[in-house]
């Protein structure tokens, strides 16, 4: 863990060398999702609501997912850019060091410019929490925190899976974007608006449903039955990371250097 923070400190210093570029990028990172959110606002302005969900409720969903995504992108960027490490043969160096591969890959990149996106999602989340008609109490607040944490775990897991594929394909795969960017775009609306096959896939295979739907029902006071179950649903999302870790280990064992 100490090693990881040391990596972060180094990367932070190096990125701060290009200060204007850093702020411009952070600014841009703020605006891209901002326009998506504006689009969403205009749609709600025209249509009122979406299958019984009001704008503030969907904004809550949006805020949670975007926050989880930007945190995961900050932290796990090393996995996202992993194909360059494999294609260049630099992964060999990671292997010979006497530390775990995961810490080193995580520490190989860290995009501080993502603070722009993070800030945007914090604003949206804050606005949604203030405007949604919910009696907030400690249990609900904790559930929202769980949702964010679980989202971070899921996105990190997907980044890891995509990185593991690189062991076999050498190249990065664009298909993985379906589950990262696509998953993000999809999960910013409550899962109920989608067709059954999408719902099933994103609940049982990649458990976004445990992040943005089941606990949300509880927070909004729509859940029936045991509240604890709904509160704990995000944990199931976090469990998604375990098989990902296992697959990563298998991948590392299969690794053959490109030898350049």
């Amino acid at each position: 863990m100490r090693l990881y923070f040391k990596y972060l400190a180094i990367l932070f210093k190096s990125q701060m060398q290009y200060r204007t570029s850093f702020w411009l990028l952070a600014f841009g990172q703020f605006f891209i999702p901002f326009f998506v959110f504006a689009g969403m606002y205009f749609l709600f302005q025209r249509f009122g609501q979406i299958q019984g969900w009001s704008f503030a409720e969907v904004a809550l969903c949006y805020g949670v997912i975007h926050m989880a995504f930007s945190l995961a992108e900050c932290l796990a960027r090393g996995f996202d850019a992993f194909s360059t490490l494999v294609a260049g043969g630099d992964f060999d160096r990671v292997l010979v060091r006497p530390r775990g591969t995961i810490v080193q890959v995580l520490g190989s990149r860290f995009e501080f410019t993502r603070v722009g996106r993070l800030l945007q999602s914090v604003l949206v989340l804050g606005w949604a929490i203030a405007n949604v008609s919910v009696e907030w109490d400690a249990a609900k607040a904790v559930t929202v925190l769980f949702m964010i944490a679980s989202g971070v775990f899921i996105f990190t897991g997907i980044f890891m899976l995509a990185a593991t594929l690189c062991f076999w394909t050498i190249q990065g795969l664009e298909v993985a974007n379906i589950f990262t960017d696509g998953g993000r775009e999809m999960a910013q609306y409550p899962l109920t608006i989608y067709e059954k096959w999408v719902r099933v896939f994103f609940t049982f295979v990649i458990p976004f449903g445990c992040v943005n739907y089941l606990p949300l029902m509880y927070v909004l006071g729509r859940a029936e039955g045991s509240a604890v179950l709904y509160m704990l649903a995000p944990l199931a999302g976090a469990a998604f990371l375990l098989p990902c870790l296992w697959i990563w280990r298998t991948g590392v064992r299969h690794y053959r250097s490109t030898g350049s």
Partner: protein
Amino acid sequence: MRAYVSAGKLKFLNGLQYRSAAAAGIATQFFWGFIYIMIFVAFYSQPTAIQHPPSLSLPDLVAYIWLQQAFLAFIVLWFRDQEIFGLITGGNIAYELCRPCGIYELWYAKLLASRLASAILRCLPILSIAFFLPEPYRMNPPASAASLALFAASLALGLLVLVAVSMFIYISVFWTMSPVGSTLLIGVVGEFMAGLIIPVPLMPDWLQRIAYALPFRWTADFPFRVYSGQIPLQEASFGLAIQLAWLVVLIIAGKLLIKRALRQVVVQGG
């Protein structure tokens, strides 16, 4: 002219090589298409939408989304040629200036060709499947033969306009020296105003007026609505003239700008 055509041809053939990337892109675009359509179907099933149907009907919207996915390479501004950025920031622009041909025309031809190659690989598979999907995802055929012809013309003109717009992104790098920050904003605003995030007819009225005044919507929103007949034929043929006018204005402005940029160009060494 022949030099530009052959430069473009090279880039085009080069672009056709990335077939597995295109296959991956097709899968991604199908996913996006489905997700967007599901979201809009959910919105359109609202009682407010049934009482006051939006000017863009659902089948027209579905065609709009599939065309958008199929011709993504014709309409997005984030589709960029790193090579040109590298030329400017790396100093190899000096070689480019020695060539016996105009730099604007050369880059224009290259950018046009790489977009064409990418779209050709992707549009046919996407469209051919989209026509046979079950409802509500099925894409309707064009409203009439005339609207199909106008669609093809407006899509081609739209592509030319888009490349002219994207030239400004490259030219701006002469001043900023960094392809990311400032160009990001042109890209994001342009794509929003072109109707890539939400279709222009679904925007509030005040925003529609802004979108109609800018060149961006002529690259995507206009051809896609001509296809479904949502823009009637007469208005569509008038629109072609406006596209042409924008094209001339943008190219002249771009050429003037690049001339000024080249007069004060600093060749980056190294």
